[in-house]
């Protein structure tokens, strides 16, 4: 990032290649839409590029990058709420009315269509994440998929470590309910 700050165009390209998967993956899991996730990823890197001349390495670069992404994603979810009105993507599952989980495919079933089962599992995980309020969702995505510590997540969210632990605790409760069929199968596997 320091090379980007000093105007090295090649360094910016390398930085994009290095971090695009993390930024895009997080945006995709937060928004549940590939096209919007690509737009948000592009905006994140453009903001980094614009802010590069003033960049001071006071925090980890990835923490700063994810904080930029957080702002853009939260703005996007608020824009969606305004435009879609009654369809709240951030309402907890228990208040979502008719959005009860569909009957899940048996995850331990062994059949020829393993790819379909995998897609079904991923779809259920995504739906469960979408049922979380945005702060819980981002905390959970950063913890599970970006391997960030509670301290780093607290920096990204602009909150304290105990608050992050609380977010994660509540998110786990919701996800356990939404993914209980898969959890039961996993426990069965572990015991078997």
């Amino acid at each position: 990032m320091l090379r980007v700050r000093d105007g090295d165009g090649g360094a910016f390209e390398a930085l994009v290649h290095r971090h695009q998967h993390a930024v895009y993956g997080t945006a995709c899991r937060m928004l549940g839409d590939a096209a919007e996730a690509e737009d948000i990823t592009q905006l994140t890197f453009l903001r980094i590029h614009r802010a590069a001349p003033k960049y001071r390495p006071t925090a980890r670069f990835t923490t700063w990058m994810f904080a930029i992404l957080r702002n853009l994603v939260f703005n996007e979810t608020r824009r969606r709420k305004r435009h879609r009105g009654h369809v709240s993507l951030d309402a907890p599952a228990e208040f979502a009315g008719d959005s009860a989980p569909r009957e899940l495919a048996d995850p331990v079933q062994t059949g020829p269509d393993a790819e379909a089962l995998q897609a079904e599992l991923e779809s259920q995980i995504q739906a469960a994440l979408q049922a979380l309020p945005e702060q819980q969702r981002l905390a959970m995505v950063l913890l599970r998929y970006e391997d960030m510590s509670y301290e780093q997540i607290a920096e990204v969210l602009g909150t304290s470590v105990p608050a992050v632990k609380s977010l994660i605790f509540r998110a786990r409760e919701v996800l356990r309910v939404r993914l209980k069929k898969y959890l039961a199968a996993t426990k069965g596997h572990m015991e078997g």
Partner: protein
Amino acid sequence: MGMDDFRSDPLWEVMGRARRPEPSPWLAGRIVAAARAEVSGPGRWGIGALWRWLALPAGVAAILLAVMVVSRPMHSDSAADSAQLYAALEAFADNAFEVDYLWSSDSF
């Protein structure tokens, strides 16, 4: 409740079975191109900005002209009225010339 506690939770394992979403192979190229375009682009004096600047004076001039033409007494064809109309048309032409000039100048 610690992170290690979560890592031993079956939920951790189930969530880990989801593959990471992959961006399109052209995304990085598009981002780099957009960043380069921002650096070498026209900035705040782009065509869009120019149009926003010109829209208001051009609109006001058009409305003034329309009001003057409509409110002009039908029976009157005095030299004063003609001069007034001529002045309004001249102002409009000046405005259009200015637009032309800005379009052809190197400022954007």
